[in-house]
């Protein structure tokens, strides 16, 4: 239901973009509401860090509102928006590399290890074991994503989670479509190797695959 509503909203996105371009502030606000979750999730998967993701999202939308009038082709709004987000992500990544301080909690946090997240279980109606498995799997997958190179990670997230077409990714990253596909291939291949190393195979996951 939500997806369909979102789709309808997306359908109207073109007119929304046109209005926002003309300086219509409510339209701009709606655009932000519509795209914030997507950009946030892109950045979150890129960094696996809520604060950085929030920062990137806010910067992206401020930049979007300022630069909307310079957008030539309204049809390219989506890839244009991701271009901004990608650039801010790269900027933040560069900053993070500059100051190599890692929170001690991230390096080694025995308390967190001893008390897994399911202690604060939310949806009690679901099978708790399955829920835990799901949570752990998601964590492992996200960590595996983080092990990929920035270039491959960008492509994999855009394709797998943002549902962009290869053409759109190529537009957003300003590279050729073949390069995107090649990065996607090696990204998936790399992920497979990482997951094998982490012992997440068809056998360990059993019937779920």
């Amino acid at each position, binding site marked *: 239901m939500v997806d369909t509503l979102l789709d309808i909203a997306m359908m109207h996105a073109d007119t929304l973009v046109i209005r926002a371009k003309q300086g219509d502030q409510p339209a*701009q606000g709606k655009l932000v509401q519509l795209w914030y979750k997507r950009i946030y999730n892109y950045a979150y998967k890129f960094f696996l860090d809520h604060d950085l993701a929030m920062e990137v999202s806010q910067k992206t939308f401020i930049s979007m509102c300022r630069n909307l009038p310079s957008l030539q082709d309204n049809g390219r709004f989506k890839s244009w928006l991701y271009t901004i987000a990608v650039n801010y992500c790269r900027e933040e990544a560069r900053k993070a590399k500059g100051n190599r301080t890692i929170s001690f909690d991230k390096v080694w946090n025995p308390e967190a290890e001893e008390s897994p997240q399911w202690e604060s279980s939310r949806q009690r109606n679901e099978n708790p074991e399955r829920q835990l498995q799901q949570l752990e799997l998601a964590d492992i997958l996200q960590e595996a994503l983080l092990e990929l190179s920035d270039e491959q990670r960008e492509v994999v997230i855009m394709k797998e989670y943002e549902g962009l077409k*290869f053409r759109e990714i190529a537009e957003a990253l300003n590279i050729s479509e073949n390069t995107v596909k090649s990065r996607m*291939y090696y990204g998936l291949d790399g*992920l497979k190797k990482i997951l094998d190393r982490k012992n*997440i195979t*068809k056998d360990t996951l059993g019937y779920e*695959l």
Partner: protein
Amino acid sequence: MNYKPNESELMAYLYGELEGEARKKVELYLMQHDEERRALENLQRVSNLLGRVKDKEVIAPPIFIGDAKQRYFWDVPYFKTIMSIAASLLLVMMVAYFTGAQIKMSGNEFKISFGKQPEAVPVVVPEVKPTVASLTADQVQEMINSSLVTNNESLQTSFEASQQKLDASIRKSLASNSGNMDQLIREASTASQTQIREYVAGIQTENMKMVKDYFQLTATDQKKYVEALLVDFAKYLDQQRSNDLQLVQTRLNSMEKNTSVFKQETEQILSSIITSVGSPSTTKGIKN
């Protein structure tokens, strides 16, 4: 059948972005190549796995963009700076007008002044009429000469007058001074005879005392000194005698030693002589 799909085509196929003929080609290839198909299936599995990660819910914070307004030409920074410079110049000029500031530059002079300048009073230079031209050189000479003569005369007279005055004053002062001096001397001679006697007597008694004291003091000092001298001398003599005795003793000892050495030597010589005298007979004896 040399066809082998590249990575791009495989990806496009995997995500359903390959259409028509190309799609069929890849399908056919995968049907014939099990290994490739399995590899792609593995990638498909990874892709499916990735789908397990759900989106995080997030609420978009309000984003305020302040400067989305249309910009008029007076909002352009260049215009603003130029206007501000112009305004400040105008302000300076206004202030200058009300304070009556004046800036002047003439030649090497740079002048900034406030208020009204007092009007310059023209300096009137009296004209000197050239009268010299009508005089000849002789006339000038004459004039100089005459002026010199009059000058000399006046100097002479003034000098004489001053000399006379000086003489008179010296004489006067001498006369008065000598009178005073005579009086003073007389007073001194008459008044002081008794005083001098008293004074001399006083000095004599004082001297006597001093000399007595001096002699007493020196006598005791000398006594002490002579005593000390005598004692020192006696000590010295004793020392000297003992040293001499020691010297004599050592000499005697050395003499004794010498005589003993001499004795020994003579004994040795004697014995050597005796042996040397005795030996040839013995050798001779042996030889014989």
